């Protein structure tokens, strides 16, 4: 994954209609973003549609990026996750979930981010997640990686809906306190 500053430059040039910069931005980020979407929508044709729509959106909204005040990958990930959550179709009763990812918070084969700033950010959130109760952590990780709704979380974890909602709410509140203490939030 390219460095933050390089991605910022590519986004800024994309905002000025530079197609080569846009192509480079796609090359640098699409495999990660495709994987993020695939975890949520689960079917490749849907993930392809998400990636396509998201990059058309990134092209059109790249001039808003300067005002977004977030890291380029954070901004692009938000666009991809949003689109994934919009079009996810659940045909199966039981969502097909990778519990290992939710437990370890990372795929074994995922290479750590190369640049220090991105690594630091992902390190902070991982550390804070590890400070949560096991149940809260698992619930939040499943929601993030797989885009499960409250009721899908309840079905998967075999817990009452109310309990799951409490885990999410309390987990997020604790997460915020921890991230604030680290100066991330």
């Amino acid at each position, binding site marked *: *994954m390219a460095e933050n500053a390089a991605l910022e*430059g590519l986004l*800024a*040039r994309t*905002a*000025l*209609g*530079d*197609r080569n910069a846009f*192509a480079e931005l796609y090359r640098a980020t*699409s*495999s*990660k973003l495709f*994987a*993020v979407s695939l975890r949520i929508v689960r079917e490749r044709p849907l*993930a*392809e549609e998400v*990636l*396509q729509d998201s*990059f*058309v959106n990134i*092209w059109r909204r790249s*001039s808003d990026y*300067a005002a*977004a*005040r*977030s*890291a380029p*990958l*954070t901004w692009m*990930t*938000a666009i991809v*996750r949003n689109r994934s*959550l919009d079009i996810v179709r659940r045909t199966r009763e039981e969502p097909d979930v990778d519990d290992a*990812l939710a437990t*370890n*918070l*990372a*795929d*074994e*084969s*995922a290479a*750590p981010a190369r640049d220090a700033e991105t*690594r630091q*950010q*992902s390190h902070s959130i991982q550390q804070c*997640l590890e400070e949560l109760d096991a149940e809260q952590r698992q619930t939040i*990780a499943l*929601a993030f990686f797989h*885009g*499960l709704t*409250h009721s899908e*979380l309840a079905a998967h974890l075999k817990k009452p809906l109310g309990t799951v909602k409490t885990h*999410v709410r309390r987990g*997020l509140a604790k*997460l*915020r306190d921890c*991230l604030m203490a680290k100066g*991330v*939030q």
Partner: protein
Amino acid sequence: MKLSREAREALAAEFALGTLRGRARARFESMRASDRALAETVARWETAINPLAQGVAAVEPPARVWRAIEARVAPPRPGISSYWRPFAIVAGGMATVLLAFLLWTFQVPGGEPDFVAVLTAPDNVPRMVVSMNQPGTLKVRMVKPWKAKEGMGLELWVMPKDGKPRSLGMVKNEMGETVMRMAHEDPRVSNAVAFAVSMEPMAGSPTGQPTGPVLCSGSIAPVRSA
């Protein structure tokens, strides 16, 4: 709907996490669009949570995805039917014709320019021409001005080979020329590859980077090798 601070924070968090769904998500999104503080709260949560996505192992998407994206962001071509096609070729060739014409008209005192860039709008129509002339002046010639918009002006950007665009200042939105003094070895232009113009507040972009829509852009055609 008036929400308490706590409720806004909690909704923003569940929105970023993805557990806020369906109609509640749609409602929240429309609130966010008109509520700057709420948008910032969401951005703060996204900044905190989204780095988790780094943990997912990359999957290469098939090549057809990029081809489809390219087709969707391509500038609209005037004329799909065969009847319109000759006009489309004229529009596409217009920038080249204009460039040739300008090179010809530059054969006047002051000499031929070092480089010329014809900036075209997304519909391929040439709108401005930027040229670097001896001795050390950058000329911006308006071909076709835009409808004036209250409090807004045109900001000229130069794109270096690497890195972010840099502002060259505001240019007039009227027929005629804006002339800027600029040394040939000025780092802003010496390794420039393209120019673009965006719509910004009269005082210039508040962020130092383009924030408004890009009205026209074009790459540099060298005329004389230095």
